[in-house]
């Protein structure tokens, strides 16, 4: 049975990597490795997971420098040239303990970008008809599958450089709502995503779109927001 050397972050912002040796197995995921460490080697290790099948996004961590879902990351895919594995918490968020981050800031940005729906229809009215093939609905549907895992936010250098930047997930969600014809908060939303903390700080780095485990493209969504905000500004609507 061959062994795998793993470095795992222990502590908070102040801390260090601890080394562990786990049995190397076929079809082993990084989440398998972390679970083995916590069960058999280090019971005090803090980490998050839930579904362990690539649906919930809870297990997102930094693996060899890149944010990934650990349950969907085979060890064989990410070992560096020396066969080492380094596991750290998600970047750009406060660390609660070891591999667990405080995601409340991430969701606060979602709210600040007006990433929530507000309509006028009630249960007493018929469904509002939205044409699925309309360009707006296609644009909204392209970004709607976000489950808020934080991988894009962790991958964005601008979030690291400018902490108040709303970030790819919040802006992507805002874009889906900008394209939702039923929503009535459009002016407030455009104002919320304009400005330095909003879409205009995006440098089109693209790491968000490259690493999104659901293959969404926040870069394109933010580009759409830039266009929409610019048009509204020129028309004096902002």
């Amino acid at each position, binding site marked *: 049975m061959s062994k795998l050397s793993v470095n795992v972050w222990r502590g908070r912002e102040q801390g260090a990597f601890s080394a562990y040796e786990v049995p190397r197995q076929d079809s082993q995921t990084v989440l398998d490795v972390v679970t083995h460490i916590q069960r058999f080697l280090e019971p005090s290790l803090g980490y998050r997971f839930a579904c362990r099948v690539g649906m919930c996004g809870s297990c997102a961590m930094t693996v060899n420098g890149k944010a990934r879902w650990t349950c969907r990351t085979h060890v064989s895919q990410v070992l560096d040239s020396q066969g080492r594995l380094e596991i750290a918490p998600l970047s750009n968020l406060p660390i609660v303990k070891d591999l667990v981050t405080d995601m409340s800031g991430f969701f606060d940005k979602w709210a600040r970008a007006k990433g929530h729906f507000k309509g006028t229809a009630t249960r007493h009215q018929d469904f509002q008809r939205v044409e699925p093939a309309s360009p707006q609905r296609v644009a909204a549907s392209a970004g709607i599958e976000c489950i808020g895992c934080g991988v894009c936010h962790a991958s964005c250098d*601008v979030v690291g*450089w*400018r902490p108040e930047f709303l970030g790819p997930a919040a802006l992507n969600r805002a874009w889906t709502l900008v394209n939702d014809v039923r929503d009535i908060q459009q002016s407030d939303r455009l104002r919320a995503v304009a400005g*330095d903390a909003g879409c205009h*700080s995006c440098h089109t780095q693209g790491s968000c779109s490259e690493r999104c485990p659901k293959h969404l493209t926040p870069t394109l969504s933010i580009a759409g927001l830039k266009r929409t905000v610019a048009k509204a500004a020129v028309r004096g609507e902002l």
Partner: protein
Amino acid sequence: MVLAVCVLVHLAVMIYAVRGGLSAAEILGRTRGSWSFAAFYSVFVLACAVHVPVGVTNIAQEWWGMGERSAAWLARAFAVVLLLAGLRAVYAVVAS
């Protein structure tokens, strides 16, 4: 947009001057007393002074960790430097 046009015109002027093999004295001979030259290049300097602070503010905040207010002041100061240096240069080749 103004800046983009200015840059293109300036590129054309430079290519013309270099390709034409104009010496410094010949160039100065053409710029001295030329109000159109002065007007165009003053607009160019103004456009730069407006355009540059936007980017410098972002760089100051994102790379040098400056706060929003201090980054804005640094950018404004740099814009003033650009304005003074640029207009001085225009004056030098047109009026002196």
